[in-house]
């Protein structure tokens, strides 16, 4: 791979904290643009291919997660390098064989436009399929989190829900969340940025181990 191609690949990858790459795409719910989701959180996720077993378990799991996500103002949108007709057939098959209705749109990214914009194709794994990527986009269209799983490994829906809860808690309360945090547990108070603030932190009434490590309940 020459330097120019490498640079293009690097530039093509989305970055946390920046506006999510805009797109217009054909989906099972008609033509959709990223801007159509403005005001809602969006989980844009890719799967390798329709009519494959791990992807089928994931679609069922995403569909089962959808009501919890809806309560949190989160929309779902799937994607793979398959046609709309393939998506429609697969979604109908899931409903027929597993009794699960897929409520979210699925992008038919045959020209790989969206997959390329979001860096969903990992050539080391497959040049013709998208890996199992998850992009969390906030109501302002900013990319807030990314998860990449390999072709072989189905994603953990509870972790995705936990991630949404953590991001929304951060936005609402201006805090961070510790390892394995779940809603209802103590959160991290951002460390003080000055020596004076560090001194004050010790007397601030938080659960403080040291000036840089404070937790509190919400």
């Amino acid at each position, binding site marked *: 791979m020459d330097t120019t191609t490498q640079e293009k690949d690097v530039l093509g990858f989305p970055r946390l904290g920046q506006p999510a790459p805009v797109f217009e795409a054909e989906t099972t719910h*008609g033509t959709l643009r990223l801007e159509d989701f403005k005001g809602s959180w969006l989980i844009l996720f890719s799967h390798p291919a329709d009519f494959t077993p791990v992807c089928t378990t994931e679609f069922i799991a995403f569909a089962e997660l959808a009501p919890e996500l809806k309560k949190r103002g989160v929309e779902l949108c799937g994607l793979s390098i398959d046609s709309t007709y393939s998506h429609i057939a697969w979604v109908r098959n899931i409903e027929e064989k597993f009794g699960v209705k897929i409520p979210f749109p699925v992008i038919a990214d045959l020209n790989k436009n969206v997959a390329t914009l979001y860096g969903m194709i990992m050539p080391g794994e497959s040049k013709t399929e998208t890996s199992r990527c998850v992009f969390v986009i906030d109501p302002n269209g900013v990319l807030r989190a990314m998860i990449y799983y390999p072709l072989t490994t189905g994603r953990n829906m509870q972790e995705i829900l936990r991630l949404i809860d953590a991001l929304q808690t951060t936005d609402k309360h201006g805090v961070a969340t510790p390892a394995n945090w779940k809603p209802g547990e103590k959160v991290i108070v951002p460390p003080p940025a000055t020596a004076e603030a560090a001194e004050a932190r010790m007397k601030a009434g938080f659960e403080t181990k040291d000036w840089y490590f404070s937790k509190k309940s919400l």
Partner: protein
Amino acid sequence: MPCIDSSGHMTEIAAKILAAMADGVPLNEIAEKTDLPLYRIRSGARELVEAGLVETKGEAYVLTEAGQAALTNASRQA
């Protein structure tokens, strides 16, 4: 959600969106009324504009003559 189906008829959802627009209801309220996600209402509105049934005036959506006719037609068929 193409607003016009392959036989040239307006879809049920498109008819609902068009009727709500005729009442001057904003898109977020149409989403609540129809229990459809806002992104579908937005894409549906765009398709209605592309079909010449609706035009935008600032933030508002206004039915064109063709849109009025389509709405009348749809309510006759209902």
